[in-house]
């Protein structure tokens, strides 16, 4: 700072704080937005007007009993595949992380094998299990059998499909769980050991809850991909959603609207899973952030509150004190949630 600087300053000293501020205008951004809107509009228009979509047929079948039953089968396959797959996956991951070379090798081999075999090939193997083993028994290995059952009776198409999906899923789940556990700071395990916390409890209470943050996004991917992947068991003539839709359009020849029926169901249920994922992730993120962000529902409520407060303030400004309303705020008091 020199004396000259301070001497010039008064010329610039005009008070600008009262002048209105004009935001910058983004003409190219507006143009791009307009072009995209036109394209979207064109597509939407096509969806409504193109007779090929055949919306009446679509609506006839969307909630038809046969389709709903097929959706239920798809959900069951997903549920069993996920629960059994991840249960086995956790066991495999822990085997892989154990100190026993035998357990490590078996787990590694399992993952190697089931990631190598295409799901559809594996499913067909299970479907044909009765050809390999006519009877399944329970007894001493290489010794007498106490109890046995005909394979055909025990393993129907549905069971074969569930086994196939679960075994396939387990290989991927094992790696996802292992990745999550590896990402937890080893110091956490050490601190738990220093406190004498029993091993199972170390895992359940300290390591896995922290691993869940890394596991969940990948697990959700897997569940959603399994959910859609169940359509592959249509090769085993199981009446899940995709098979059922194929049966119907095989009968009436309306391929496109029936594919849309399946598509809409897959989209709706994937959306439900995605929303569930958001809330489960939020639960396991507790403690991870200083101030957890609000949920969409909370954000919406805050928006409504702000809007009400803003319009309320506007009303008061226009009409002065309203009948029986709260006393107008004092001049010096900050206006709550008002216009900024």
């Amino acid at each position, binding site marked *: 700072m020199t004396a000259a600087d301070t001497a010039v300053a008064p010329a610039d000293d005009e008070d600008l704080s009262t002048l209105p501020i004009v935001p910058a205008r983004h003409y190219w951004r507006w143009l791009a937005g307009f072009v995209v809107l036109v394209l979207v509009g064109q597509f939407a228009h096509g969806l409504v007007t193109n007779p090929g979509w055949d919306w009446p047929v679509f609506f006839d079948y969307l909630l038809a009993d046969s389709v709903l039953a097929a959706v239920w089968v798809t959900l069951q396959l997903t549920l069993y595949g996920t629960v059994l797959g991840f249960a086995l996956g956790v066991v495999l991951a822990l085997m892989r992380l154990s100190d026993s070379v035998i357990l490590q090798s078996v787990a590694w081999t399992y993952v190697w094998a089931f990631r190598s075999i295409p799901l559809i090939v594996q499913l067909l193997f299970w479907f044909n299990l009765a050809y390999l083993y006519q009877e399944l028994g329970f007894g001493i290995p290489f010794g007498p059998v106490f109890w046995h059952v005909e394979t055909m009776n025990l393993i129907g198409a549905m069971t074969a499909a569930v086994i196939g999906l679960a075994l396939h899923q387990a290989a991927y789940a094992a790696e996802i769980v292992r990745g999550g556990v590896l990402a937890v700071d080893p*110091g956490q395990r050490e*601190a738990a050991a220093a*406190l*004498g916390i029993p091993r199972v409890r170390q895992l359940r209470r300290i390591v896995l809850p922290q691993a869940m943050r890394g596991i969940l996004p990948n697990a959700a991917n897997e569940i959603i991909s399994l959910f859609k992947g169940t359509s592959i068991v249509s090769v085993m003539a199981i009446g899940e959603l995709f098979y059922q839709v194929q049966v119907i359009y095989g009968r009436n020849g309306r391929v496109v609207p029936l594919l849309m029926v399946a598509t809409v169901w897959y989209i709706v249920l994937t959306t439900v899973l995605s929303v569930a994922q958001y809330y489960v992730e939020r639960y396991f993120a507790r403690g991870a952030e*200083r101030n957890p962000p609000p949920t969409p529902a909370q954000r919406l409520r805050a928006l409504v509150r702000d809007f009400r407060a803003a319009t309320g303030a506007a009303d008061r400004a226009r009409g002065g004190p309203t009948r029986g309303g709260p006393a107008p705020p004092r001049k010096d008091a900050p206006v709550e949630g008002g216009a900024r």
Partner: protein
Amino acid sequence: MSGDAMVDVRGVHKSFGALHVLRGVDLRVGAGEVAVILGPSGSGKSTLLRGINHLEKLDRGYVRIDGELIGYRRTGGKLRELKERDVLRQRAHIGFVFQNFHIFPHLTALENVVEAPLSTLRRPRREAVAQGRALLARVGLADKADQYPRQLSGGQQQRVAIARALALEPKVLLFDEPTSALDPELVGEVLDVIRGLARTGTTMIVVTHEIGFAREIADTVVFMDEGLIVEQGPPPAVLDSPAHERTRAFLSKVL
């Protein structure tokens, strides 16, 4: 200190591969005493401390706490390694405070403190919670009980870690450079807590680089270098008139 030392370390050796980290360490700490271990990095201080509660297995030698062998049991002429479950049970009597706190980030301060009493000692929840709140108050964090670690400063996290270690009412408390990961202005609050514990007659072994603090709280200062205890004695003896050249060289660098 004669035969009735609270902590008794004898002839301890430990190697990591070709690296011989501990080369025959003997250390005795009496009940209610505070031993402070000083030494350059790589001298084996932390490994010794981790060996005392069997976070590191020893290659040779043994550790006794209150007369009980840690990590091994004697059968005839052999020391047999204990099962993990039994080692975990022994660790309930040995509190450990880590350099990087290792506090559980997904649990609140109070949940961190009550976890071990609930699962290791199987205390009733109400009792554990009452004790946990009292301990948090003792380290000056009564109002932070329901905060998550990431909402706390480093010094506060380390104080929660100390409360967590105290919750097991250990016979010995081990501190592994408890202030090394802290901003300078947060060191004081943690040292205050440790100082308070020293005054109440808690048996402690503290690895630290805070020489002034060592002088203040230590009954015995132990200087380690290259896997051996070079000298030990009361603070004035070791810190003001060290007998060994290596001790002198180290002190001249850190003071």
